[in-house]
């Protein structure tokens, strides 16, 4: 069934289609309608789930952690300051190996008070152990929720997933979303039955004092799972394609095969960049686009493979790591270590400023006429 949905509605219907058992969320702009629509779906009986009303984001994720540990499939959603308030519990969820799925509507951190798109909020949670996906359109939001439960719940992975969508560009923009047939979705995503859970018949303690004798190995195993997730994501993506016809992987390439120059980006900017690629190709410029879907696990092998034959690479970051450069640029640079390819790091669209086709064309022009540079600000009013 196809419907016209905003990104937030796609997220809410995605969680509903995944048949989550427990939802605990606290409303925050621009995520609010995700929580609103889910509370309606639960209240009118469309989804048999417990909707837990909480007084903060810290409590929202804590309620999900408890429910997930007891064997429930859980969902929550937040944005910016709300995600920051969850920070402590994000570590708890990941190190507790609880496959929670959460959508984060990327919003700029205050002050200045902002409700517009910027990925600093989610990038700041990079090292909590969560897998992180960045979505380009509303269909991808819906699909990624279904795939993420399957990846997260895989017994070789057992890690939570943070699904990111840009504020307003997706959260409040309507697009056509195919919601498929619920029977096929149920076939793709069966019920959740964890091997280890809180169980009065078989009592255990969870997250208790862990001596240096064991803590190191728990961290080692968590990293192994992040690495294993790369192949699980690919495998789940293939299975998804067979049932629903859309293909997803760790990265998405667009006209990269013969490209002299490749732009690397994520989220909604990727859509604009692909349109720019088409226009520049009409003018005879061999440009391609690489969209990064996963920040964690970071697909460095895939990226290195695609970019190893190109002549220049430009990364567009909708975030700045103060005192360094764009955060995705840092990641990409480490993936490209040892290759002699000029790299350019662009900062654009902070705090929801539009990133236009003209902006992207100006980046490409810069790359053609200048030496490589780690930090190039696009559109600063100087």
């Amino acid at each position: 069934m196809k419907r016209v949905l905003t990104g937030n509605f796609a997220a809410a219907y995605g969680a509903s289609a995944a048949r989550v058992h427990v939802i605990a969320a606290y409303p925050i702009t621009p995520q609010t309608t995700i929580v609103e629509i889910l509370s309606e779906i639960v209240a009118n009986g469309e989804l048999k789930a417990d909707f837990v009303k909480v007084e903060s984001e810290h409590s929202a994720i804590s309620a999900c952690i408890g429910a997930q540990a007891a064997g429930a499939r859980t969902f929550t959603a937040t944005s910016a300051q709300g995600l920051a308030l969850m920070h402590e519990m994000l570590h708890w969820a990941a190190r507790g190996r609880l496959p929670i799925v959460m959508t984060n509507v990327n919003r700029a951190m205050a002050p200045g008070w902002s409700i517009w798109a910027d990925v600093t909020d989610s990038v700041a949670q990079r090292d909590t152990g969560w897998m992180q996906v960045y979505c380009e359109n509303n269909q991808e939001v819906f699909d990624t929720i279904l795939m993420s439960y399957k990846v997260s719940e895989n017994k070789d992975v057992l890690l939570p997933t943070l699904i990111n969508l840009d504020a307003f560009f997706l959260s409040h923009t309507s697009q056509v979303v195919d919601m498929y047939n619920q029977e096929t979705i149920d076939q793709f995503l069966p019920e959740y039955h964890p091997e280890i859970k809180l169980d009065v018949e078989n009592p255990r303690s969870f997250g208790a004092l862990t001596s240096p004798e064991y803590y190191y190995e728990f961290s080692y195993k968590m990293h192994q799972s992040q690495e294993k997730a790369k192949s699980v994501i690919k495998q789940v993506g293939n299975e998804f394609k067979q049932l629903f016809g859309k293909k997803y992987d760790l990265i998405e390439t667009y006209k990269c095969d013969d490209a002299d120059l490749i732009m690397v980006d994520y989220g909604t900017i990727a859509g604009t960049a692909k349109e720019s690629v088409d226009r520049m190709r009409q003018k005879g410029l061999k440009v391609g686009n690489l969209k990064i879907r996963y920040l964690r696990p970071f697909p460095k092998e895939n990226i290195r493979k695609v970019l190893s034959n190109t002549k220049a690479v430009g990364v567009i970051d909708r975030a700045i790591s103060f005192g360094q450069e764009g955060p995705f640029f840092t990641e990409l640079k480490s993936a490209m270590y040892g290759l002699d390819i000029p790299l350019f790091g662009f900062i654009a669209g902070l705090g929801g400023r539009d990133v236009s086709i003209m902006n992207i064309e100006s980046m490409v022009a810069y790359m053609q006429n200048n030496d490589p540079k780690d930090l190039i600000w696009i559109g600063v009013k100087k």
Partner: protein
Amino acid sequence: MKKNKKPKKVIIEKASEMPPMPASLGSMRVNKTASWRSIKPIINIEKCTSCMICWKYCPEPAILPTNPPEIDYDFCKGCGICIVECPFDAIGSEKEGK
């Protein structure tokens, strides 16, 4: 809880044998925690009236509710609360390792 299940000591030597999350594999009953006791309480059976006040006060609980009560030296940490609380001065002590 299955009450008759006998706990057994589990030692894990390889990461591959560990559970994915820091969750216990068995009961704390196998993990004997009295090694750092420096004062050992001893019940004088002649003075003891089995009032069980020591059993009520023991925070561990390492006093077994038998008649007369017995101290479980696998878990007693030697805090001395039972010595102080016994109304009949029936619990004495000696230094550990003597």
